[in-house]
């Protein structure tokens, strides 16, 4: 017994130690991704990568740059970090074309660490980028796209709708309607000619206009188009004249919009014809370019947000970029980034080693579940089609080019703010 007792003591000690070690081992089990699409794993110290797709070349580049600035202001508001991880923006140029949007989206999607995309500037780029993004299981929020084709038309899924696409810019399905209502009811015109440039944005606007105007009892005497890059506008203006139109609705981008306006002003017959465009030309560069040619011209565009929050952001804009904002569209970009970062905060799971786990489907669900988000552009509630902004459109008229965009925005002739269609 004398020999056995020490051995038993040692064995008992080992057993006790093992039991204590086991009991004290409270390390949590490793994270298990149960997301239907998959999870993004962001190790401690690694950045949260967010892709930015904007039009950074050509005449529309100022629009894209404003979007980026809005995004940067939003990120900056978070101190450049989210959930103890730095936020890294990877920016790609879409060229405001479908092919540019698609290829730029590929660059972002190729990196499995890309969490989400903010963009695009142009709806035409968004259509191709949105499809690629959606197939990759990601989310994309635009602060500038307004083409109805991207979300919903008449409360139904639009042709270019893709899951995971959201926007804080209003659906311009109501922009065309607003223009038509004003033309028929306020201006009293009966014959209208429309000109688009073939992309889904301008086409969506003219089609929306035509539909409502016809329904009101008016007549679309010409439905024509120009191509991006066209410089010779006389033939199409001749067609307008031939059609005896009382109003020309031409929601074009620069420079086609500029050229067409200038050419129309060269024709005396157009003095009697109302000219109306859209938000794409509510831009200081346009006004600078056409100057007095735009005088008297009507514009239909989203209602301009106002208030102290907007002023604060605008001040931040001015301070950061040393220039006042040219348009109000950067605010939608600001809200788009804010919406995304808020959703990421809600769905991200942090494991013990500091790794963030973000479920891709969970992120989509969180965005679709956004209700009453207090954005600078207003209260945002995302519907199942991805439209988060409340539609409100104004009809503006430029009276003094020297007052610039702000003067234009201030001259509101008509406002239309319908309730959001939902399904």
């Amino acid at each position, binding site marked *: 017994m004398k020999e056995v007792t020490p051995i038993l003591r040692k064995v008992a000690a080992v057993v006790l130690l093992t039991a204590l070690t086991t009991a004290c081992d409270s390390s949590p089990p490793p994270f298990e991704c149960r997301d239907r699409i998959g999870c993004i794993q962001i190790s401690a110290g690694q950045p949260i990568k967010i892709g930015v797709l904007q039009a950074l070349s050509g005449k529309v580049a100022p629009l894209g740059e404003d979007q980026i600035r809005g995004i940067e202001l939003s990120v900056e508001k978070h101190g450049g970090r989210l959930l103890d991880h730095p936020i890294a923006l990877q920016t790609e140029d879409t*060229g405001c*074309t*479908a*092919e*540019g949007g*698609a*290829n730029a989206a*590929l*660059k972002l*999607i*190729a*990196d*499995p*660490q890309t969490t989400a995309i903010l963009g695009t500037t142009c709806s035409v780029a968004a259509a191709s980028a949105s499809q690629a993004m959606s197939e990759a299981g990601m989310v994309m929020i635009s602060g500038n796209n307004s083409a109805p084709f991207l979300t919903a038309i008449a409360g139904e899924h639009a042709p270019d709708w893709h899951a995971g696409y959201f926007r804080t810019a209003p659906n311009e399905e109501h922009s065309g309607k607003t223009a038509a209502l004003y033309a028929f009811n306020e201006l009293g015109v009966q014959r209208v000619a429309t000109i688009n440039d*073939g992309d889904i944005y301008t086409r969506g606007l003219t089609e929306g206009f035509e539909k409502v105007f016809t329904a009101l009892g008016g007549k679309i005497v010409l439905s*024509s*188009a*120009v*191509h991006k890059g*066209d410089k*010779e*506008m*006389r*033939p*199409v203006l*001749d*067609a307008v004249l*031939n059609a005896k139109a009382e109003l020309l609705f031409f929601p074009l981008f620069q420079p086609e919009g500029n050229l067409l306006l200038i050419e129309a002003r060269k024709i005396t017959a157009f003095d009697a014809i109302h000219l109306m465009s859209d938000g794409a030309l509510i831009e200081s560069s346009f006004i600078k370019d056409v100057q007095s040619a735009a005088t008297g011209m009507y514009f239909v565009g989203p209602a301009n947000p106002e208030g102290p929050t907007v002023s604060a952001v605008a001040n931040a804009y001015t301070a950061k970029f040393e220039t006042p904002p040219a348009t109000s569209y950067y605010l939608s970009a600001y809200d788009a980034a804010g919406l995304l970062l808020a959703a990421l905060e809600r769905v991200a799971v942090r494991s013990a080693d500091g790794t963030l786990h973000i479920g891709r489907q969970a992120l989509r669900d969180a965005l679709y579940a956004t209700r009453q988000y207090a954005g600078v552009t207003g209260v945002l509630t995302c519907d199942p089609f991805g439209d988060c902004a409340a539609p409100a459109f104004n009809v503006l008229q430029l009276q003094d080019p020297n007052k610039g965009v702000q003067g234009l925005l201030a001259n509101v002739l008509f406002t239309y703010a319908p309730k959001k269609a939902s399904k």
Partner: protein
Amino acid sequence: MRLRQRLSAYLNPMSITTRYALGIGLLLTLIVTVSLTGYLSIFYVRNADRDINLSTEIQGMVLAMDRGMERARRLLADFHLQYTTIGLAAAHEQYAQPSVRQIAQVITISRELKSRIKQSRVRATLHESQVDLNLYLSSAKRFADTSIQSVELVTELAAPDRGLEAQLKRNLDDLRPLITSDLHLADLYNQLYAHVQAYQISRKRYLMQQAFNSLFDIRKVLNSAPGIAVDQKQAIHTLLDRFKPTAERIMAVDVAIKSKFNDFAIQEQVVAPISAALIGLANAEVQRSQARIARANITAIIIMAAITLMGLVLATYIARVLNHSITQRVVRLTATAGELRTGNLTVLAEESGQDELTELASTFNMMATRIRSLVNHLENEVEQQTVELAASEGRYRDLFEHSTSGVAVYRPIDEGRDFIFQNFNKAAESIDQVKREEIIGKRLTEVFPAVKEFGLLDVLRRVAKTGQAAHHPVSLYLDGRMTGWRENAVYRLPSGEIVAIYEDRTAEKRAELEKAAMERQLHQARKLEAIGVLAGGIAHDFNNILGIILGNAELAIDEIPPRNPVAEHLKEIRTASMRAKEVIRQLLSFSRKTEQKMEPIMMITVIEESLSLLRASIPANIKIEQNLSKSCSAIVADQTQIHQILINLCTNAAHAMEPGGGTLGISAAMVHIDETEAAASTEIEPGTYLELAVSDTGSGMSPSIQHRIFDPYFTTKEVGKGSGMGLAVVHGIVKNHHGVIRIESAPQRGSTFKILFPTVESDGITVATPPIPMVGGSERILLIDDEASLLKPVEKFLDSIGYRVKAFTDPAVALDLFEAKPHQFDLVITDMTMPQITGVQLAEKIRHFHPGLPVILCSGYHSAIDEEEAKKLGIRRYVTKPIRLNRLAAHIRDVLDSQAA
């Protein structure tokens, strides 16, 4: 030197095993270290080599992807350039399809490349290129999609007949004849046509817009043109209506194609830097791996050289230590052992140190001392054991010599086919009746020539060959010198000698044979008893019948004149009846139902009497030779039965020699049966016998016949010549006389029957004399027989010789008469077997009324009453049926005379 001394001081206390283990362990450690270094170097170099290969492979794949993409783009560009020249179908086949195949190949390569990089051990920089590869792969896929879409757009635009441009041209062509009749309209049409062509060249939309404006003008002029019919106007409007949608679609397709070209340009911008970066990374990886290989080679060479040098030094030192501390001491110890081997028991080995060799030397010295002591002790032991061995040898010799079993020791020769006697004990001498000195050294087959037939030789050969002990069961050994039953146990000694231990089983075997013979005899006796019972049953009836025949025949002979021819026939009847009576008597004799009268007789006398009777019945061509020894002793026998034997044997012999005749020999002599001869037989004991021999020179018998001749009713004679009972009767008589009958016969060589009778002393032997014939009388006789046909002749005969006879067939009636006057009769003659009452019962009743009245009892067969009983009942004579009347008369007279006396 100091190091060497320290090492020696460290090693010397160690055992040899430890020193060897240490030395070999060190060498092994060096070998393992060298091997490990080599292995690690190879492993390291192989890994680097693999990385080089992988990087080179990646490079190759990236280049292949680039080449594929470049070819695909070029082919697609060629398609767009060439389809207007060579036709859409040819362009599709030559450029569009190869382009798609190229891009499919690029996609496959990029997937493979992605997989390689993901699975490989290349550096992190290459792993990080996964993102670029993803983009490359996506771009390639996108190129595939957009290129196909662009081809589809071109097809929609330019397909022969059904393409948009063809439709537009057809539309214009259809419009021309309708519209050119009016000059103004024709002018407008030309403008329209010119605008369309201008558009098709420049693809500028405003040109097509001008065409649309021309359409507006045409419609305007057409509506106001008076020279054009309404139907024609309508047709023109229809064509104009078709124009615009087609033109709008053409422009949309043109825009889309342009968009695709932009797409291709962007894609190229995307992938070009990716491939360049990948190639750069792979190149850097190759260079790094090559540097790793070079470093590994140099390191391995230095380590291995150092270890090899150290190993050489260490091996030399270990060899020197082992030589000094082990090998030289082993040599000295071997020399000491050599001296011990040559007989120098005083030699001692050197003992120094603490290792196993020292221990071995110490052990060697102890062993040498011990050997010296043992040698001295051994000599004493050998002497003592020699004495004990001699004593032991004596004990075993006694065991051998005094064994009651025969023991023979053989040495195999001729490869075990024969055996030489090595030893032979006394019991064996006694059993085999040979002397040891006479057979030692001789062959077994020489001493016992029948050993092969005996079966023992094969057993000895088998044992000699296999070494397996064997048992040779009880068998008969028989040669000219000796006969006897032997049982052998044979085994082989370790020396190879064969030992046979055997027993003489002659006495046991003889007893066994006799027991078997007795069992056969018992069986025979039971068989004969059964026949006897049968014969006894029918003998009475036969004798009654014969009595009637014989009695009536004798009466008839007496009553007819002797010269009457019928007298001869009647005599024949009487003779036949007597012969039949004799047959019945023989039958009864065979079954021992006749009484035997055993008494000492002289055989010669009986033979001579029988011959005197036989001579008359034996044909003259048969010569009778008799050889009767005067020295024959008497035998105890029934004379009548001996006579019967002679009659039967001689009659058979005479029949065997018919019709040619021959010699009938009869002899009698004394013979002696010794033990050997008796042992071969189961029927006879050793001793002196009287031999009666009857021989003939007739046809002889085959062995199969010989076996059956003693069976009752077995005969080879033709019908009417024999009953088949003759030899059966002879056999029965011989057995009753404790004799033996032997046959010597062969076909055509005659037969000899030899009968051996036990003899007795012949002093006082007398020969019985024949009875005196009797005559008639006048006494009163009561005659009773239930057979009327038998009763009548007897009554008539007795009347004829003077007696006064009262004959009755019914015993009750006779008794009634007798009771009435018991003394009116002097004699009663009664049948034994009657329906109501037997002869014995009748006699008893008669004695009741008239004690002392003599009674003669007649029976066909009766054996159940003995002489004393018969006397008590007044039965004075017992007469067997059928009885000759004169013999009955003699009996009656004899009884009456005896009664009177």
